[in-house]
């Protein structure tokens, strides 16, 4: 029986290792982690700045896009990385104290840290540029981001468990997730959508995470349809499913 201290050791060692394999291949590695979302945010800010006719009262466009792109990207990247956690690391399951769940946790933590950094860079940059830093709630902002990460982790865990049975999972789900960006209120406030459509939109738990982050960051932002318990329920159900799948998967894994 292993203690929680061992597990902490394992996750910490995996985290350092993941950082190295993910970014450390060349010197530009860490920079890439930031360049990619920068390009995204820059592109969409430019596009909506020139053509969009959105009314974002009291909100800076770049800051607004950031609060959409960063949690969305956190969800998608975490889900994708957690999904392939077993497949990419079967060699490590050789060590009896390393469990699939540890691989998933390490990857989720790394993604969260990277996106937190990107978010802080952009939101901080905008605040410096405007010369004012007026935040409704730090806790709300961070909780929104954490919800997005937890949604990605729990979804990734379910897919990771399923991927042991079929390699199609790893190909299918990222493709299915791609159009999700257009249904996640990434580029507009959820309240800007007409009532009937909005009810549909709010079925997507990721929208709640994104709205929560905005609600925390922008004073006076009205996320009237926000319900933090809704994404939390999704997370709990998917975690329950994912953890059970992981336990079964561990028995089925053939560790070469």
């Amino acid at each position: 029986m292993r203690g929680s201290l061992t597990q902490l050791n394992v996750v910490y060692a995996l985290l350092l290792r993941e950082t190295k394999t993910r970014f450390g291949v060349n010197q530009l590695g860490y920079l890439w982690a930031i360049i990619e979302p920068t390009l995204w945010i820059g592109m969409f800010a430019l596009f909506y700045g020139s053509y969009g006719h959105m009314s974002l009262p009291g909100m800076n466009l770049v800051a607004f896009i950031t609060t959409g792109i960063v949690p969305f990207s956190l969800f998608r990247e975490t889900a994708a990385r957690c999904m392939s956690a077993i497949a990419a690391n079967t060699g490590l399951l050789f060590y009896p104290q390393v469990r699939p769940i540890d691989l998933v946790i390490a990857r989720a933590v790394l993604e969260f840290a990277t996106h937190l950094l990107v978010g802080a860079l952009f939101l901080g940059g905008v605040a410096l540029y405007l010369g004012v830093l007026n935040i409704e709630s730090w806790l709300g902002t961070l909780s929104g981001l954490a919800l997005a990460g937890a949604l990605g982790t729990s979804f990734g865990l379910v897919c990771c468990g399923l991927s042991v049975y079929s390699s199609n999972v790893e190909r299918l789900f990222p493709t299915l997730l791609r159009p999700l960006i257009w249904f996640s209120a990434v580029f507009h406030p959820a309240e800007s959508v007409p009532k009937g459509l909005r009810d549909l939109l709010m079925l997507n738990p990721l929208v709640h995470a994104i709205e929560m982050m905005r609600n925390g960051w922008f004073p006076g932002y009205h996320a009237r349809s926000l319900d933090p318990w809704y994404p939390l329920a999704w997370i709990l159900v998917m975690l329950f499913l994912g953890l059970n799948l992981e336990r079964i998967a561990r028995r089925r894994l053939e560790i070469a």
Partner: protein
Amino acid sequence: MIDLDKISKAYPTRTGSNLVLDSVSFSFPPHTNVGILGKNGSGKSTLLRILAGTEEADSGTIRRRGTVSWPIGFSGGFSGSLNAEENCRFVARIYGADVDDVVGFTMEFAELGDYFYMPVKTYSSGMRARLAFGLSMAIEFDAYLVDEVTAVGDSNFQLKCRKAFEERSGRSSVIIVSHHIGTVKDYCQRCAVLQKGRLHYFDSVDEAERFYEAA
């Protein structure tokens, strides 16, 4: 030091389930090096992985007293894109050992030269085996589980492996699986033969050899 109680393990195959271990019960005696002989595909590597805890048995219970190594062999355990030093650091951390000690010991033992700082995927299988063996020796275990690995390398390295085990013979024991009687003779006082899912135990290696050759 390790007790197996009715351990069974089967793998699904196209023609049905292949029973690799059929209700194996056995107590490994403490401070005794035990060899397990088996032909290719007899399930000896599976047995080793179950002893280590890398894989779970389908049924039965296993009790371990003292610390047990991972299955030391050619495959698994290293990430190809990282170099030997980084791999050593990782393993030292998950076993709670001193990172610098482990790296230093492994570097000296494995004799990889400049390759120590090259990605492991560039290694030959002999070099991988030397790294695997050196790394496992850098961490203190009560029982070392070895999968063939000592049979590789030149005679110099083989001698080094034997000496490393002799040095810690009072503290640690080794369980070696092999299809090669010579390896078992070099290391072990006792021997078991794995055949058709059953483990046949012999008090002397010679007896085991006769049984193994006849099968």
